[in-house]
């Protein structure tokens, strides 16, 4: 019997989180950058950006705990990475940027537990809204979020996500 707890990530978890990110990126999001144009250094920057003096993100990890008599130690099997955003209309909100659970641990409600924990953090910090993005082919994820009360703003209000990617941004900057 596997017991999984959701807790705040510690600096020492960065290596495990980076490994899960790489596993997830083996099936990449279409169109996502595989390489950064800003010189991002993977795990090293993940640690500095999340656990430095001014963190740019927060992270929860799902950790499986060994049962009685099991020799294997605790193991990070999933994560939820989020940050706070600001709306001129709604004030402070939380944005769930990335969530992942190892395939062998999926279907046990761990993803839902991570989302619920982020919701608790959001309420604790005075946020009025929780936002996230989902790809339109990911019906399973969309159904999960809708079951939790989520609304598709792209469908309902016509909001589209836009990007100036690295090279275009460099041109705009006049570099």
């Amino acid at each position, binding site marked *: 019997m596997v017991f999984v707890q959701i807790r705040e990530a510690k600096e020492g978890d960065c290596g495990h989180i980076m490994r899960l990110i790489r596993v997830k990126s083996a099936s990449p999001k279409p169109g996502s950058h595989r390489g950064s144009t*800003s010189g991002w250094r993977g795990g090293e*920057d993940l640690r500095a*950006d999340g656990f430095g003096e001014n963190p740019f993100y927060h992270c929860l990890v799902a950790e499986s705990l060994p049962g009685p008599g099991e020799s294997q130690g605790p193991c990070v099997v999933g994560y939820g990475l989020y940050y706070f955003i600001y709306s001129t209309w709604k004030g402070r909100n939380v944005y769930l940027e990335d969530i992942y659970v190892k395939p062998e641990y999926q279907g046990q409600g761990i993803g839902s537990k991570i989302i619920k924990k982020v919701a608790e953090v959001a309420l604790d910090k005075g946020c009025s809204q929780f*936002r996230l993005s989902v790809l339109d082919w990911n019906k399973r994820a969309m159904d999960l979020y809708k079951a939790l009360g989520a609304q598709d*703003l792209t469908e309902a209000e*016509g909001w*589209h996500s836009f990007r100036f990617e690295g090279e275009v941004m*460099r041109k705009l900057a*006049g570099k």
Partner: protein
Amino acid sequence: MKAFSLIHACIFLKPMVGFGFCNYNFYESILSIAHNDTLITGHSVVGFAMYYFTYDPWIGKLLYLEDFFVMSDFRGFGIGSEILKNLSQVAMKCRCSSMHFLVAEWNKPSINFYKKRGASDLSSEEGWRLFKIDKEYLLKMAAEE
């Protein structure tokens, strides 16, 4: 000919750890100020951009443009372009991989403005949908065992 200057202002909702550029504040703003001899202060704010930093665990920091507006009387002078240039320079200085923002699909002038400058519509091109969960549902989730 109106003279404009861009002022980068750091506005804090409440005190954060550390001041200064590229830090994680709730938001920062770029103000476009018109020099106006008729006003006592000599200037008035005619445009602004509000932004903050977000994060993608695959590529690191991003600059997120939350709000961007130039008063209608002051459009067509290149103020919007100048603000965007300023934002891009901030993004590069802070080692951001890209700049993200939302546009409503019915807002054709804004869509044209951004696409003319090389922006990609990730919702149309890659299928990204923005979801929200309102507070009442967060409270329900938190109350469940």
